[in-house]
């Protein structure tokens, strides 16, 4: 658990980076600090491991005042993942990961075998340990950065915009990886980002900071999107917050309906309306538009590309998107193996959302 008690940081030039911050980061959760640049989120993070010391106030990590601990000792007990990974270019990947255990005085052999375990944990092949950071992609470097932070098994992990330098697809993969790791390791994680989408995606609690180092709102992501505390937060979480908040609504209430299907490579019987083309494993391949005449076996070239798919039991945002992006207006639901289960319309999804709003009051 990390507690900020009336923490203020005023820099030498007089700017107030953090203004009387009171906040408790619960043990075993991912808490995200988010806000525009100059809002004090990074300064707040860096005060936890004393990269910066507060002007006034107290920070407690597991009940202990950080100012009472020698900074290098304190830092060895707190994992830190920095922007652009910050790996040491002159050390192999394995030795990078072994850094903190070696600082703690472990033997080289023990530190390296621990480092090898960590590489496996973050999903990197063991032979990558012999490489140098420059031989890795940005996403791989960032995984090594996470492995290095976890090497000495610290209870607290600080992550300072760790995924901001990688492209969006890789970033999403890294976020999923972090959530998977957290499910396994149960650390107390403070994660700083300027990206509100990243914040609501990975945070169990999100602290929104505004310029001048003031905490604007500290809440669960669903609450942040549904009930922003003020105009600043409403503006910051963005225009489509209504839509994004559907990520936190369960799609289990949506009734999946049947859909006529045709099989790619087989003859098509006459019929009208949109028909969903599937392959022999029942995976969707596209839509056959109404009135299309097909001679002989069905070829993929006559199909309209399908929209996004949603998995039954996931969020209602996926169901809505599937319906909206489908050329037929029918969102395709699949099971975890990717086989078609049925379809929903946007109207159906909306009815479920409305129904849930009423039941919530």
């Amino acid at each position, binding site marked *: 658990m990390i507690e900020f008690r009336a923490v203020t940081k005023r820099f030498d030039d007089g700017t107030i980076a953090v203004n009387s911050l009171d906040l408790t980061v619960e043990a075993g959760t991912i808490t995200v600090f988010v806000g525009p640049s100059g809002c004090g989120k990074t300064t707040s993070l860096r005060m936890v491991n004393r*990269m910066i010391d507060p002007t006034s106030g107290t920070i407690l990590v597991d009940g202990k005042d950080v100012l009472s601990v020698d900074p290098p000792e304190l830092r*060895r007990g707190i994992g830190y993942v920095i922007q652009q990974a*910050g790996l040491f270019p002159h050390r192999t990947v394995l030795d990078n990961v072994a850094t*903190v255990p070696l*600082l703690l005085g472990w033997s080289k052999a023990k530190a390296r075998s621990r480092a090898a375990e960590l590489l496996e944990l973050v999903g990197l092949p063991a032979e990558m340990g012999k490489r140098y950071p420059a031989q890795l*992609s940005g996403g791989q470097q960032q995984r090594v950065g996470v492995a290095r932070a976890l090497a000495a098994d610290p209870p607290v992990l600080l992550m300072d915009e760790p995924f901001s330098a990688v492209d969006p697809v890789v970033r999403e993969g890294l976020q999923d990886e972090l959530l998977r790791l957290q499910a396994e390791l149960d650390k107390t994680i403070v994660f700083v980002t300027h990206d509100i989408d990243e914040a609501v995606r990975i945070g169990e609690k999100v602290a929104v900071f505004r310029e001048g180092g003031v905490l604007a709102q500290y809440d669960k992501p669903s609450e942040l999107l549904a009930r922003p505390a003020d105009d600043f937060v409403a503006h910051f979480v963005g225009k489509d917050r209504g839509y994004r908040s559907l990520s936190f609504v369960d799609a289990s209430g949506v009734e999946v309906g049947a859909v006529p299907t045709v099989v790619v490579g087989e003859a098509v019987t006459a019929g009208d309306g949109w028909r969903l083309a599937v392959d022999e494993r029942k995976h969707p391949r596209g839509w056959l538009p109404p009135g299309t005449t097909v001679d002989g076996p069905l070829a993929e070239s006559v199909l309209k590309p399908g929209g996004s798919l949603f998995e039954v039991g996931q969020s209602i945002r996926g169901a809505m998107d599937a319906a909206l992006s489908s050329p037929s207006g029918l969102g395709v639901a699949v099971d975890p193996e990717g086989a078609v289960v049925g379809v929903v319309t946007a109207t159906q999804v909306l009815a479920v959302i409305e129904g849930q709003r009423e039941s919530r009051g």
Partner: protein
Amino acid sequence: MGDLGKYLSDAGTRGAIWRMLLEHVYLSLLPLVISVFLAVVLGWVCHRYGWFRGALLGTANIVYTVPSLALFAIIPAVIGTQVLDINNVVIALTVYTTALLTRPVSDALDAVPAHITAAATAMGFRPLRRFLTVELPLAVPVLFAGLRVGSVSNISLVSVGALIGTGGLGVLFTDGFRSRYLAPIIVGIVLTLLLALLVDGLLVALRQWLTPWNNLQGVKP
């Protein structure tokens, strides 16, 4: 050429040349080693304390413009050594090489990316260990570029020391000029050149051994 063969046929001459070569190696490389340590310390001071940087690097530039012969002559007056003491040459060349190396060391330390030093600090490195195991190793390629210039410059400057009688291969030049005999001059030139090439080659090999991470041949994922 016949002269050269006759000159080298004498065992006594060959022994003398060998001693001069060893002297030359000592006089040129000892200052190199000492100045690496001094330049690392001074380079760190420049890197750490900005206000010191201008003053120190300015002084280094001025020192480097003092003619070597003048410096060889001034040093005994300044530190009270004998005029013919070979330490004069060692000290003078140490001063030159340090002046030459301080700026690149300081620049190389400045060039270590801030997020790497910040990461080291956040991992729990204390400042001295961080300097020795993170910042300094990253400055090695630049340091060696300076060392290569310094080694060649020293090997040629040691010859000048012969004018004030401090030994080394330069004695072959003074002897040759005095007796108007070409053979020792040719031997002196060839040996000086070979020594410079050999030392340079060794420095390149040493740098590659120290910085395997800096010689990666595009083995991208």
